């Protein structure tokens, strides 16, 4: 007898995330891969890896919902989509059922979403057409510093005297970083300055409430950013179990709670 599983596919600009949940909302399979240039192929690979982790096949999928920039590229699984803002809200509220502010730092954009105690969105904001404070900003800076993204968290932690970066333009920030390199500043201090810049850019987007949840790949891979953000706002930040997968989990929850009959499900046919 097939299992009753629900799938969320979050096709981000930078990474593709897939979450597989059961009827109780338990996350039983997941995968993350670089989105690359063939969104459909990446989504298929993520889906298969997630199902394998869940010990399931495509025949076990009852319903699926897609989200993210590439949400229209997964018609082979589902034609039903929700925005990443909706899915992040749903995913975060699943873990923290209270009034919260969600700060999502993604590869291409940032979002601040405010939820009331019933989980309804009261407002949201995305960053303007600017890479300031996004994962793309850190990728660009890592490249300038000739370090890997993975190294950044460890380097920032070793900083003794953080560099202050004034500009919110990625290009101007790069110039500031180059100037610091010329002046012999330590890479550790520069990286911590970059982290500080990311948090500042995000926090100036909107007012935040008492309880703050952070999500997204930048947060998932750089726990030090979460600690720094907590220090800046003066209270601890809450994190979902897998911050990078929160949008995908939200999409899967929408799949579970949605109207299955109206959703076009081709996964079963394709399996």
């Amino acid at each position, binding site marked *: 007898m097939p299992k009753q599983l629900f799938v969320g596919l979050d096709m981000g600009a930078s990474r593709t995330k897939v979450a597989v949940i059961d009827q109780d909302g338990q996350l039983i399979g997941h995968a993350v891969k670089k989105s690359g240039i063939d969104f459909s192929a990446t989504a298929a690979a993520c889906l298969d890896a997630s199902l394998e982790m869940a010990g399931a096949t495509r025949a076990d999928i009852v319903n699926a919902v897609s989200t993210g*920039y590439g949400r229209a590229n997964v018609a082979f699984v589902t034609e039903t989509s929700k925005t990443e803002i909706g899915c992040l809200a749903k995913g975060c509220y699943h873990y923290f059922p209270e009034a919260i502010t969600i700060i999502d730092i993604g590869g291409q954009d940032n979002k601040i979403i405010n939820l009331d105690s019933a989980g309804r969105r009261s407002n949201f904001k995305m960053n303007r057409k600017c890479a300031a404070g996004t994962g793309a900003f850190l990728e660009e800076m890592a490249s300038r510093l000739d370090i890997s993204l993975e190294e950044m968290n460890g380097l920032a932690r070793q900083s003794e005297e953080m560099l202050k970066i004034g500009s919110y333009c990625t290009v101007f920030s790069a110039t500031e970083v180059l100037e610091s390199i010329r002046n012999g500043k330590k890479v550790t201090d520069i990286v911590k300055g970059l982290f500080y810049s990311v948090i500042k850019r995000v926090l100036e987007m909107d007012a935040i409430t008492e309880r703050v949840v952070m999500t997204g790949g930048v947060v998932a891979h750089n726990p030090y950013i979460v600690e720094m953000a907590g220090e800046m706002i003066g209270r601890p930040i809450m994190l979902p179990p897998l911050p990078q997968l929160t949008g995908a989990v939200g999409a899967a929850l929408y799949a579970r709670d949605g109207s299955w009959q109206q959703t076009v499900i081709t996964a079963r046919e394709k399996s």
Partner: protein
Amino acid sequence: MTTEQKNIRKKLQATDQMNRIMTVYFYGLNEAATSGNKKVAWCTSVGPAELLRAMGFAVHFPENHAAMLGATRMSTDMIPAANAIGYSPDICSYLTADIGAYLKGITPLSKAYKGIESIPKPDVLVYNTNQCRDVQDWFAWYAREFSVPIIGITSPKNINEVSSAHIDDVTRQIEALVPTLELISGHKLDMDRLRETVSLSRQCTELWKEVLETATATPAPLTFFDGTIHMGPAVVLRGTPEAVEYYQVLLAELKQRIAEGVGAVEDESLRIYWDGMPVWGRLRQHSDLFAGLKANVLASTYCSSWIFQAFDAQDPFRSMAKAYLELFIVRSDAYKEKYIKEMLAKFRIDGIIYHDAKTCPCNSNNRYGMPQRLEAETGIPALVISGDLNDLRCVSDEQTKTNVEAFIEQLEEGK
């Protein structure tokens, strides 16, 4: 669940008549400029067109031309030419698109109207800074280029209540234009003709107001996107019988739609207010985006800005001054908030979208905390989208789409 679907807005039959009168207008303008049978005045879109028309000028509106450059998606290729001669990418993209197009010897008029080779050369340029300073700088460039006089009205700004002192000031400025205009036109101002023109403008305005207010019906028979196109005659033919006749036809069609229960958007479920400029190069996409989500953007500050209820044929100069001063864009945030609040109630709006146009600060009302204040007061959710009226380099389609879809989801979930 949001599933995208095609739900295109319905075409208005009156469009054909509008196209006919606009065609006659543009050929008339071209004839005046090429044959010299009439002097040509360029005028800012909100005035003082009545005075120019009454004095026998053929009137060209550069803002209309710039909007055409935007709507035909030519503007983004024109703007760099103006940037290159020192006009910043951060200033009005109507200005930069229009001057850029002139520098490149291109006009959308040639494509739309066979035989028209260029914009009509002006004999005089007449501005009113009630909208912004950019219109004066824009006209000043052409004044140097064509070596023709530039005259205008320097308007008070950020007005709470329009006072008699404000009206006195602008009335004197309009009156002071007359001697120069008489000299250029070769005619004395005929007060009866001015009264008649102001009267026609008032009739046009009343009809245009009625047209826009048909959207108070549920479902609304027209959209903001229709409005941006159908306001053409209210801008360029105000003060003529043709504009009055046109809006009578359009109004009849919209009333018919209401009688039949026909909405401009099928299955209208959400009613949206738009504040700020349209993104001219994305009218179709934005129209389809909202219609596909069963949301009708049905009322706006922009289209309503061509309602001038102060026009009074008995007192043409003072009433023109009052009309140009009462305009939304000339007013303080306190006035603007009161105005928008009334619009939200009148049109029973579910959500408001502010377009933050990169190059148009005077039409980007989100920049001084207005969305937050109005949302706190009315409880009606707001969304700010970043973009521009004419410079598509400042527009991110994907960000707009995600923002709008998420906003509609939010409104649906809150219902």
